[in-house]
């Protein structure tokens, strides 16, 4: 066990290090912006006094390194700063209560997680089943058709699939709403109904990816000599799959699931925009358009963090499911 523990600790340390470096990359990228944040916030007609005041408020007169560590410290303590849009509003209009980035992001983050959760709940079992079936009946008509179908849905942009679903399930047959206006205090059933269409869109894409990877992993596995050996020992097909293939398929399948959940994070952005789903992806795109830097930075870090975390989970789970590592010589 110490061997495995060591590997896992190594991976964890590497994950934290990566996240740290990623934060530097994001910070540096933002600091490459021309001119000054303060001017950006206030626009062209800003008075020098206002600019100076904002600079002081934001600590822009500090050196870059100091600012980085302050920013990092804020991020770690959950203080994501104040949105420029809010700041601008307050500076120009005065008064009013300011919304922090955290208060903007938190409910949307929950919404996005809900969307991703619903998608995963549909896509994972569905994709695994399809993948295993097409691996078992490979080169059959069924396999060829799923191959064409999944290739097509991988290749299509998310918005294409989204509009086709809208066309058939919302416009022609009004079963589901085409806009996902979700608000706080909504019942679970209603919320689910409004989330279903974006979730289905994501499911199409993710299922295709996951199914193809599962199929490849299972075919690879079925070709291994120990599977042939199990069949030559007269074991039933069911037993071959459950007893001999599955324990070894765990690592690749876990990997497939984690990678696709990570993929979901990117897919979510476009789909949220199509369905006007109040998630973090839509917030991110809006912030990009109006160059609201604190929000962009925070969203970026959240996306990257989730992505790294999922990849890390995949890594650690596959270490744990490998008998060679679990039982060292």
């Amino acid at each position: 066990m110490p061997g495995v523990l060591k590997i896992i600790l190594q991976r964890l340390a590497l994950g934290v290090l990566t996240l740290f470096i990623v934060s530097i990359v994001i910070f540096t990228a933002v600091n490459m912006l021309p001119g000054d944040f303060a001017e950006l916030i206030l626009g062209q007609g800003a008075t020098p006094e206002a600019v100076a005041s904002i600079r002081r408020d934001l600590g822009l007169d500090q050196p870059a390194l100091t600012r980085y560590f302050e920013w990092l410290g804020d991020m770690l303590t959950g203080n994501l700063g104040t949105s420029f849009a809010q700041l601008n509003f307050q500076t120009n209009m005065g008064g009013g209560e300011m919304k922090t980035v955290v208060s903007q992001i938190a409910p949307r983050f929950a919404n996005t997680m809900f969307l991703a959760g619903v998608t995963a709940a549909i896509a994972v079992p569905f994709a695994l089943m399809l993948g295993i079936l097409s691996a078992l009946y490979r080169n059959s008509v069924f396999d060829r058709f799923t191959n064409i179908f999944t290739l097509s849905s991988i290749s299509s942009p998310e918005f294409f699939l989204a509009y086709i679903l809208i066309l058939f399930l919302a416009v022609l047959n009004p079963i589901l709403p085409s806009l996902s206006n979700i608000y706080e205090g909504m019942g679970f059933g209603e919320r689910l109904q409004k989330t279903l269409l974006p979730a289905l869109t994501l499911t199409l894409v993710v299922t295709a990816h996951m199914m193809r990877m599962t199929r490849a992993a299972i075919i690879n596995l079925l070709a291994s000599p120990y599977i042939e050996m199990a069949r030559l020992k007269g074991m039933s097909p069911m037993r071959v799959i459950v007893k001999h293939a599955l324990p070894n398929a765990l690592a690749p399948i876990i990997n497939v699931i984690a990678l696709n959940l990570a993929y979901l994070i990117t897919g979510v952005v476009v789909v949220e925009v199509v369905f006007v789903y109040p998630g973090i992806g839509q917030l991110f795109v809006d912030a990009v358009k109006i160059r609201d830097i604190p929000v962009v930075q925070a969203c970026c870090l959240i996306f990257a963090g989730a992505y790294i975390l999922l990849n890390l989970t995949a890594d650690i789970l596959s270490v744990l499911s490998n008998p060679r590592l679990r039982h060292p010589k």
Partner: protein
Amino acid sequence: MTTLLYLAAALVACFLLGWVMRFAGQSLTGNKPFFRDMPMAVAFGYVLGAAVLLFTLWYYFQPTVDENGVPVAGVMFFRWAVQFFVISALAAWLFRLLGRSVGTDGSRKLFRSMPLTASFGILIILIYAFVAIFAGAIAPYGQAEVFQQVNALPGGDAATGGNPDHLLGTDQIGRDLLSRLIYGAQNTVGIAFATTLIAFLLGGSLGFLAATLQGWLDQVLSRGVDVLMAIPSLIFALLLMTIASAWAGSEKWLLTVYMVLIIALIDSTRVYRLARAVGLNIVVMDYIEAAKLRGEGLPYLIFKEILPNAYAPLLAEFGLRFCFVFLTIASLSFLGVGIQPPLADWGTMVRDLAQFINFAAFSPLTAALPLLAAGAIALLTVAVNFVVDWMLHKSSGLKE
């Protein structure tokens, strides 16, 4: 809710029918191995497949206009889809036939072992390339040309709000949609192609260099790439585009150039990974050792010994990368931060035309407009993926 119940009932019926079919098969054929060893799942599959086929046929021949003279959009869309499927299958088949009888020995042999999906892919890629190159000659109008009539409906029939001069109608400021669709091929495909090329030059050369030299250069590059790949690519692209848009200011064309560079940089990390992996596999070969021991220099090693063996995986990767870049650019444009007007491009078109989808019940043709632009994107990536899938299958098939 009732629909779901019907669906479940249909599935159960299929299952029962499957059992009956297997049983009948067993007793009628005197227990031939085909029926004897057939698992229930397979029997179910056969029946389900037959049911879907029958439903398709039945639905296809439903009337497109109901008793009140109102078009039934669902049937129309379904017909279009089926017609498109049949026509493309036919075209792919004819194209393969052509390829088998025309051309050099090598190309004929290639076409002989080609599945329909791959020949369909090649045909589509050729058509896109043709349209992209000769867009100026094919398109009836310029991409930025503005006409009097705005929001003309497609169909070219003046009675239904169309204009015979504009087959697909005009957009909200009066530009001809057909021309913009055709120019879109040039802009979207061209820009994606250039981006992929840059990504390959950058990532490919660094990857091979790292694989050949190894040591500290490899370490530095690989760790750097690891970090860049830890940020999801679309998110990273959006972040950098924010900054680029500030740099570009009001120069819209500059933003497009920045976008090409940004996406090329992000995608070159993926190319680097692959090139390095392919390179490492080749570098351990004995013929590389033999060349090193002969005293050959680095350029000879890379260009004469390694690269010729990396063409096949690199070509496949080029296809996949192109799809990725193409989709990323389309997504960025769709989100409003990609290719900038006045250049026509499909992603932006989808965004601008998206609301027409709600008119599907009254005017199916209008609703098809955003789908046409989005479909143009999907069709090319599907085509490229079909070809790549075939190439990968071919190169791995030798081992099986």
